C-alpha cells in the first residue's frame, strides 16, 4: 500500500478518535446520555478503522479481520441508533 493510502487510513482512525474524545469529554461534563451512546458508537468505528488498517497493512492475506471489523462497527452503530431513538428527544412521560 502506498504512502497516500496509508495517510488516508490513518486519517480515518484519527477522525474517529477525535469524535470519540470530543463526545466522551462532553458526556463526562454534561451527563447527557445521548453523548454516551454517541461516544460508544465512535469507539466502535475507531476499532473498525484500526482493524481495517491492520487488515490491509499488517496482515494482508494472513488473517481476515472482517468479522471483527464489521462486528465493531455494527456494535457502535447499534449504540448510536438506540441513543437516537430513545434518548434524543425530551418527551418524558
Amino acid at each position, binding site marked *: 500500500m502506498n504512502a497516500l493510502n496509508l495517510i488516508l487510513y490513518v486519517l480515518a482512525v484519527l477522525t474517529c478518535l477525535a*469524535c470519540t474524545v*470530543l*463526545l466522551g*469529554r*462532553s*458526556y463526562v*461534563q*454534561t451527563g*447527557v446520555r*445521548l*453523548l454516551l451512546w*454517541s461516544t460508544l458508537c465512535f469507539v466502535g468505528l475507531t476499532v473498525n478503522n484500526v482493524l481495517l488498517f491492520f487488515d490491509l497493512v499488517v496482515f494482508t492475506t494472513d488473517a481476515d479481520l472482517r468479522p471483527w471489523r464489521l462486528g465493531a462497527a455494527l456494535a457502535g452503530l447499534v449504540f448510536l441508533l438506540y441513543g437516537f431513538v430513545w*434518548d*434524543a*428527544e*425530551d*418527551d*418524558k*412521560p
Partner: protein
Amino acid sequence: MEDSAFSDEFCRFIQTTVPSVGAAEVLLNLLRQPGRPWSAAEATREQPRDAIVSEDDARKWLELFAARGVVAQTPDGRFRYAPASADVDALVRILERAYNERPVTLIQMIYALRDAKIRSFADAFKFRKS
C-alpha cells in the same frame, strides 16, 4: 413582558411539561375555561388558529399535563384545569402572557428546549465551551 419573566423555573416548566406549541395552545384553552372538563376531541376542535392538532396528540399532552399536576382528570376521562399548587398556576399564567405578548420568543424557546439533547451532540465538537 420582561426577559426576567423567562426564569429558569419557567424554562424547566416548558421543558418538562410543554413539548410543543400545540401543547401550549391546548393548555391555554383549558386555562381560559377553568371549570370546564375537556375531552381530547373537544380540545382539538377548539383551536385559536387553524392549527391542526390530532386527537392522539391532544390526549398525549393532556395526560402529560395531568402527570405534571397541571390538569386533573375527571372520572369520565376528561380533563380540567387544576394546578396542583399556586406555583404551577403562576407558571401557566406566565405561559399565557408569553403566548400573547412574546409569541416568537416563546416558540423559539419551546423548540430550543426540545432539541437540547440533539444540540448537545453538535456542541460537543466545540473545542472551547462558551
